[in-house]
């Protein structure tokens, strides 16, 4: 990862620099017009949020059943990123919703389940910050329950009418819209990998430093 970090950083920076141009050049959507362009950042934010949630849940499970500390560091770093990218999705969504639906927020299945999912990861971070010693295990359990929770929240709120655009919309994009969307998705995923790697490295160094302190005291 160390060798790849700098090239990936440059590539990601280039993609993000070009993204506004690509989005600018993409055609206007026939009914939404300009406001639809937020989709190029909104959807990739949620891609990253759900990838981060997956990494957190898997890291938590590995930590819980094998006791591997590095898995826990991955889980913590991923949880932080899930909150950040989830917040991005939650902020960009209403900007579009205000124009498309006339309201900032709908108690729609997708919105509600995304919000609940985001709250689980906020709770995760609060637990890590204020739970004190031993909260790693509980947070791993929380991440597992959070992942298991997703279908339930989705199912239980889906019985209210869904107004959010379907995910299948992504597959049926015009090539002129699909290419900038793919670019943005790749840029967001690359950013996620970069920040995750940097964050895990920081945690690893912190753990190594703690060990050095402890061995100094002995």
């Amino acid at each position, binding site marked *: 990862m160390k060798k790849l970090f700098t090239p990936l950083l440059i590539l990601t920076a280039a993609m993000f620099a070009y993204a506004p141009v690509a989005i600018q050049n993409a055609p206007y959507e026939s009914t939404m017009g300009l406001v639809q362009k937020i989709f190029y950042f909104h959807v990739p934010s949620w891609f990253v949020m759900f990838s981060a949630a997956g990494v957190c849940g898997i890291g938590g499970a590995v930590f*819980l*059943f094998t006791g591997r500390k590095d898995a826990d560091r991955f889980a913590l770093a991923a949880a932080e990123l899930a909150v950040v990218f989830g917040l991005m999705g939650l902020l960009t969504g209403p900007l579009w919703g205000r124009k498309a639906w006339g309201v900032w927020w709908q108690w729609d299945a997708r919105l509600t389940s995304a919000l*609940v999912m985001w*709250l*689980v990861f906020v*709770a995760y971070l*609060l*637990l890590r910050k*204020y*739970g*004190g*010693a*031993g*909260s790693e*295990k*509980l947070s*791993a*359990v*929380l991440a*597992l*329950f*959070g992942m*298991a*929770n997703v279908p*339930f*929240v989705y*199912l*239980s*709120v889906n*019985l209210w009418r869904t107004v959010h655009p379907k995910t299948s919309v992504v597959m049926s994009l015009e090539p002129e819209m699909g290419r900038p969307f793919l670019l943005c998705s790749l840029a967001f995923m690359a950013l996620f990998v970069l920040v995750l790697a940097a964050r895990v490295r920081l945690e690893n160094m912190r753990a190594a430093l703690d060990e050095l302190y402890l061995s100094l005291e002995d």
Partner: protein
Amino acid sequence: MSPEARQSFAATVWLVTKKDLLIELRSREVVYTTLFFAVACVLVFAFGFVREGVAVDDAAAGILWIAIAFSGTLALGRTFERERQNDTLRALMLTPADRPALYVGKLTGVLVLLAAVELIVTPLVALMFHAPLFAFPLMMGLLLAAGTIGFAAVGTLFAAMLVRARSRDVLLPILLYPITIPVIIAGVRGTAVLLQPEVNLPVARMWLSILVFFDVVFITLALWTFEPAMSD
């Protein structure tokens, strides 16, 4: 599981439950405080949801389940605070008993407490909000039972694990509510169906089945994670 193992599992569950209920019967602390808290909740919500003497639509269902969730959190917190004071939870974990059996024992104790609270609060809500909660007693009872089991199954696991954490009082609701939102939704919607002028029983049954499914998944997960989570 062999018959002997099953027997010892049941015996452990019964011992833990009996211990909790005996302690509770002597002081009656949790049941009294939780019950009063639930009644206070109902009263506070009444101020918010009653317009010109009549409650807004579906208010009774929402108020009932929020009262259960809030007072359930209180009961969970108190039950495990008791285990913390003399470090008895650690003593319980040191016994050569099955960890899952200890979990089920604690869960049963909490469920009995919450059932006692619901036995008072449900008629109270029905009475104060003119809600025909007992028109379908079996369905209502099943919804309450399934919802309470789901809520308490997650709550018991989290409360047990929070015993050693700092700021546990604040963290319990913060962790518990996002995870148990499906229980609240299914409970409220299922109860609201029963309150309609024309009751659509298949819809209520669907919500009940969501609750039961939730119970199965979350009890399985809790049994599976209780052992590694509670060992140092």
